[in-house]
């Protein structure tokens, strides 16, 4: 019996103690008619050895293509120490630290995570994680609407240059609370959100919040200072959506404009978390101290024990669903604890300088790649201006999807076709380079692309 320790003797003596004949007797309160028959759609169990083989085969089917896809999930080098430590049983098989004294490992790691994320974003506080970057944006919007009592508005401006999947998830999550999501368009030549578009979206009505991506979905850098100040002038709170790796080089949202933003959210995956087909990742949310009581999700705080020794506990619990129930700041309960551990280890092991170098390599490789690809006849950059580690290409003469198909045939994932997301943008593709994409990898890509467009 996989994972069940009971011997026949155990079972017999347990049943006798309870006073039932057999195990089935324990289900005697359940109406007979409700009892399920044989689960024919569930395969027979297999020993671990056979499951190993099945999964090895399936994993092998995935191959190991050279990946220039980004668009919200980024291939990075992950130091080997991280997952060897993160999967230690004491982290892996513990739960939410309800018993603080027996959970100082998880609690202190989380406190360190909060500290490092606050440092990275330039904000005062951080929560203990949300599911991912997309749902974090939704939570931030709900938080801003809740927190911005002055504005008395449920209008939120979300630029089109925000990741389309983030906008989808946000729509799903905020849709039933009367929140109005207003788009702000991007400029067709720069790929960024100009002030005029923000103004157009703001209109004359009150606005609760404005979302500003940095870099935006196209990899381009937004004029965050101007956008932040304009939003604040209108009484809106500002929500930054930022890539953590980019923040190694870019001004932290806490310093955007005159006052800094109010909330920063984003996807923590680039901080040591594998691509893993889309998850588990980790959403982060940082904010000002005075908004801390509006935050969704868990937060860990420092305190002392009965003898005055420092220790850590979950705090501001009165915001949460298990206490506040229908009035909670969010319904979130289980969050992404283990990913917090991995990200904390990543930040500690890379250190500020190592991390900055990673970001510089991402940026330098992306610049080089764009130049190398644009040197190919028929390939051109869609947008002008600075970018971090992603950029949009146009291809003359062949549909992007065909080109990507050819590349896939050569075991290269060349990027993301944008037409399905932006039908008014025309045929284009989003390409990413990170520190993993040195000369050899870029050359392989350029040569394959040259063949594909020839």
């Amino acid at each position: 019996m996989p994972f069940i320790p009971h011997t026949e003797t155990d079972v017999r003596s347990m049943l006798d103690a309870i006073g039932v004949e057999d195990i089935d007797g324990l289900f005697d309160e359940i109406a007979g008619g409700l009892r399920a028959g044989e689960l024919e759609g569930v395969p027979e169990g297999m020993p671990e050895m056979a499951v190993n083989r099945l999964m090895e085969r399936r994993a092998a089917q995935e191959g190991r293509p050279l990946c220039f896809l980004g668009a919200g999930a980024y291939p990075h080098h992950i130091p080997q120490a991280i997952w060897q430590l993160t999967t230690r049983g004491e982290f892996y098989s513990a739960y939410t630290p309800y018993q603080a004294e027996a959970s100082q490992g998880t609690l202190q790691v989380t406190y360190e995570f909060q500290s490092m994320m606050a440092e990275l974003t330039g904000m005062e506080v951080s929560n203990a994680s949300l599911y991912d970057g997309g749902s974090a944006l939704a939570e931030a919007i709900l938080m801003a609407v809740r927190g911005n009592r002055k504005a008395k508005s449920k209008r939120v401006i979300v630029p089109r240059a925000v990741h389309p999947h983030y906008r989808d998830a946000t729509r799903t999550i905020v849709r039933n609370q009367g929140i109005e999501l207003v788009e702000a368009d991007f400029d067709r030549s720069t790929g960024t959100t100009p002030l005029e578009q923000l103004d157009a979206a703001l209109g004359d009505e009150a606005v609760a919040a404005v979302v500003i991506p940095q870099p935006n979905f196209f990899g381009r850098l937004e004029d965050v200072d101007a956008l932040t100040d304009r939003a604040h002038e209108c009484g809106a709170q500002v929500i930054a959506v930022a890539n953590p790796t980019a923040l190694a080089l870019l001004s932290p949202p806490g310093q955007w404009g005159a006052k800094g933003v109010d909330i920063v959210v984003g996807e923590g995956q680039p901080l040591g978390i594998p691509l893993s087909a889309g998850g588990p990742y980790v959403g982060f949310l940082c904010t000002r101290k005075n908004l801390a009581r509006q935050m969704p999700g868990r937060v860990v705080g420092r305190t002392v024990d009965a003898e005055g020794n420092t220790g850590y506990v979950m705090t501001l619990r009165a915001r949460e669903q298990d206490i506040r129930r229908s009035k909670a700041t969010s319904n979130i309960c289980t969050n992404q604890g283990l990913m917090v551990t991995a990200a904390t280890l990543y930040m500690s092991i890379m250190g500020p300088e190592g991390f900055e170098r990673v970001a510089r390599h991402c940026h330098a490789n992306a610049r080089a790649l764009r130049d190398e690809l644009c040197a190919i006849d028929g390939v051109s950059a869609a947008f002008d201006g600075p970018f971090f580690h992603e950029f949009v290409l146009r291809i003359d003469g062949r549909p992007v999807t065909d080109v990507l198909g050819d590349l896939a045939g050569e075991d290269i994932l060349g990027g993301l076709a944008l037409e399905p997301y932006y039908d008014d943008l025309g045929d284009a593709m989003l390409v990413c380079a990170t520190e993993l994409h040195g000369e050899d990898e870029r050359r392989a890509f350029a040569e394959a692309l040259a063949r594909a467009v020839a």
Partner: protein
Amino acid sequence: MTELIFDHSHPGRSNGAQMLPPAPEPDDLPEALRRSERPRWPEVSELQAVRHYTRLSQLNFSIDTHVYPLGSCTMKHNPRACNALAMLPGFLERHPLAPPEAGQGYLACMYDLQNILAEVTGMRGVSLAPAAGAQGEFAGVSMIRAYHDARGDTERSEILVPDAAHGTNPASASMCGYKARELPTDEEGDVDLDALRDAVGPQTAGIMLTNPSTVGVFERNIEEMATIVHEAGGLLYYDGANLNAILGKVRPGDMGFDVIHLNLHKTFSTPHGGGGPGAGPVGVRENLLPYLPTPMVAEEDGRYVWRTEADCPDTIGRMTAFAGNAGVLLRAYVYIRMLGRRGMERVAEYATLNANYLMTRLREAGFEVAFPKRRASHEFIVTLKREHDQYGISAMDFAKRMLDYGFHAPTMYFPLLVPECLLIEPTETEAKEDLDRLVEVFTTIREEAENNPELLRTAPHTLPLRRLDEVRAARDLHLRWSPEDSEPATGTEG
């Protein structure tokens, strides 16, 4: 008292093996957009980081080190194969937007998983998108709303929720724009049927139920409740957090539920990770199929493909940017393939056996259980009201003292309707002798409560820290390290 990683930091210390060669200044980036100071992350060596986090880990109680009978959380063994196989490089390196042609292996697993979960729950379709139980609830209630809306039935404004329900239930209802209306529990632990009859009406969008319920008993009137709600035009939502008790024995679909979520990090043994990640797939009956959250996996001509918003115009949409907690789903899939059909039923059987045995033994030992006339499901409630009144100790004191004996404490003070309660869930993976030890520890602690209640009130005593001051933490907010905290000279209270 353990130091923070920041306390090991020295300016200029670095981890050479992670240091890429110097790269050019990013001088194409406008000065105004550039960062002027590095984040004050710790500057430590690899050894310092390894040592710090290894030692921190040892401060945790966990399933791998302790019996962890935390009710409602199903802290069962997390088989190591699940972890290893979900972390095969082919899976780990798969980009979420990789086209299906780039690799069918992952999609094949997800397709199988959708079907297996549909089968064990008796539902028609499953989406794996929700990232945890609460998100599953949200997705489920959103689908209920979408269903009513699609029929033009837009006046329904309430979701019924038993008073014993988990906090995520009312919170999820609220997030969907519904008012959560509470239903009382009767003295045998079932939902009060008369109250239900009174509560339903044209305003009823649906009801959220956990069955077995959060008080640890099987809701016996479930079929009648289904009829009442359905007749009022509402739908039934099944919170699958307690599915472990009836896995393979009773299917939510057969009880009359229209929509369900599962907690794979409970029933399907994916790791709890110190607070996630989880996975909260949702399943629906025929009538709600169009609304399932995206993406899902379908089979077309023998190939697996994604189904996204483009294919599902009525979907409630995405829950997260990509396809949910994929790595968690893979772990659940591995677990399921090892267990198989018969193994699933055994989960319910032995989880129930352990709970009823433990309940019996504790009753014999003189503890009061909340619903003595009932079978336990996979968990049950002990109330320490008598001990509280006689010895002046609380359930919290009792729980903290358990830590001294090397047991993680049960869930305390949930559900709220039972005073001084401990919700105890041994799970099927614990051995009888450990349950027997647990009974001994309960007995010993009660003796201590009688003879020396202070011992409980000041517990724990044998852990690196004594009782932590939660009130102070919330009053005097320290949510992050700042540099002054690491300077030996200054503020112990930064």
